[in-house]
């Protein structure tokens, strides 16, 4: 009974499965980007080769950095992603295992990877990393408010359920939340928000390669960098899964694969067709455009639209 949980965490919905699928999705990302640029793009094993190469390189710790916090920050991200994977998949396939308030637990766990970036960037004693960490923090405050408002639409539509298993059951009975006006609004807002959570192009302000080199992960090399990239790849898989779970009927049906892939391709297309925003523009976008939009969605959801 206890060993099966070890299996859940390490192999199937947990670490191994999620990281392999996430790395394959980053390959899809790079390949689609390459096709948009009218070039061939990397072979399918490219993310795995990158990961193995980073594992075999030495890990440098900058002088003056806080060693423990510097090295623990990527582990924090990767642990959060593993726990999210296990919770999300177990609650999809065994809805009776979910508990009241697990939606809120998942939201807080999704806040940990940006926190890992902020901690790691601040601990690395590099001015550019500090700038990146502060931008990440600002961006986090920007996107979290519309994201909570968008998830509130689900909660309102399901008559106040904050239990993922129950939300999935509700959608099985009454149809997915996405098939209503407020559901569409929630999905659009969430797509923009996960773009920012992943740090992809319109909102890659924290990692802006051309201005502040790589932001919080600037000083990372070797294993630590590999873990950061892996946690980002896992997030790239888990965030669309999360959206499909709470808006689009759960992951149990085989069409869920197509839904997740569709969301991933939409993310990649947004990434490739937009320039980077400044941090103040991004904040204005989230608070002054998406938040009123989300409030309209909430009002529509109260009226069962």
């Amino acid at each position: 009974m206890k060993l099966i949980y070890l299996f859940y965490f390490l192999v199937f919905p947990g670490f191994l499965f999620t990281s392999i699928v996430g790395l394959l999705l980053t390959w899809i990302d790079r390949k689609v980007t390459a096709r948009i640029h009218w070039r061939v793009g990397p072979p399918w094993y490219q993310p795995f080769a990158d990961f193995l190469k980073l594992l075999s390189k030495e890990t440098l710790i900058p002088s003056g950095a806080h060693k423990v916090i510097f090295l623990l920050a990527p582990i924090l991200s990767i642990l959060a992603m593993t726990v999210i994977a296990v919770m999300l998949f177990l609650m999809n396939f065994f809805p009776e295992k979910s508990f009241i308030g697990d939606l809120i637990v998942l939201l807080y766990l999704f806040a940990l990877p940006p926190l890992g970036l902020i901690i790691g960037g601040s601990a690395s004693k590099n001015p550019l990393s500090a700038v990146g960490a502060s931008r990440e923090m600002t961006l986090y405050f920007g996107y979290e408010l519309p994201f909570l408002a968008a998830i509130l639409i689900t909660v309102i539509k399901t008559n106040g359920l904050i239990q993922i298993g129950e939300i999935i059951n509700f959608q099985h009975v009454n149809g997915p939340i996405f098939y209503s006006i407020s559901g569409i609004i929630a999905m659009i807002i969430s797509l923009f928000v996960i773009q920012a959570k992943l740090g992809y192009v319109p909102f890659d302000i924290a990692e802006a390669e051309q201005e502040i080199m790589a932001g919080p992960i600037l000083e990372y090399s070797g294993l630590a960098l590999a873990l950061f990239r892996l946690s980002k790849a896992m997030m790239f898989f888990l965030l669309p899964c999360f959206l499909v779970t709470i808006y689009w009927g759960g992951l149990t049906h085989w069409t869920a694969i197509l839904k997740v892939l569709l969301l991933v391709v939409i993310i990649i297309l947004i990434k490739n067709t937009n320039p980077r925003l400044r941090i103040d523009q991004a904040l204005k976008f989230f608070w002054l455009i998406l938040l009123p939009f989300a409030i309209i969605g909430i009002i529509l959801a109260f009226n069962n639209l």
Partner: protein
Amino acid sequence: MKDIRIQGLKKSPWVFHVAAASCNNCDIEILDLLTPRFDVERFGIVLVGSPKHADALLVTGVINRKSLPRVLRVYEQTPKPCLVIGIGTCTCDTHIFKHSYNVVGPYNKYLPVDVYIPGCPPKPEAMILGIVKALQKL
């Protein structure tokens, strides 16, 4: 174990561009190399913004008294194993700057350069050939 390290380096060399006081000609050719037209991502080559992430340093230009400590610093910050790729004739010898008061000599006095790509500037095709040869040599 060593084999895996070399294989990983072969399949995904991330490059960092060190412009050690060149005349900008080679730098512009490197930017050309990284455009979609030549598509170096086929070989896993990606331009990164920090020497801490890099596996290969693309050095251009002659080393002079001002740029030498900086180039050495960048080399020290690069996690090993790493490649050093000299781009342009200036990196092979000191080219037309040979008799300048400020030039401190060719690269191989200070850095273990793995491959030299001559040309003033070399074409992007020549750079791809040179990098692929350097990777095969590993």
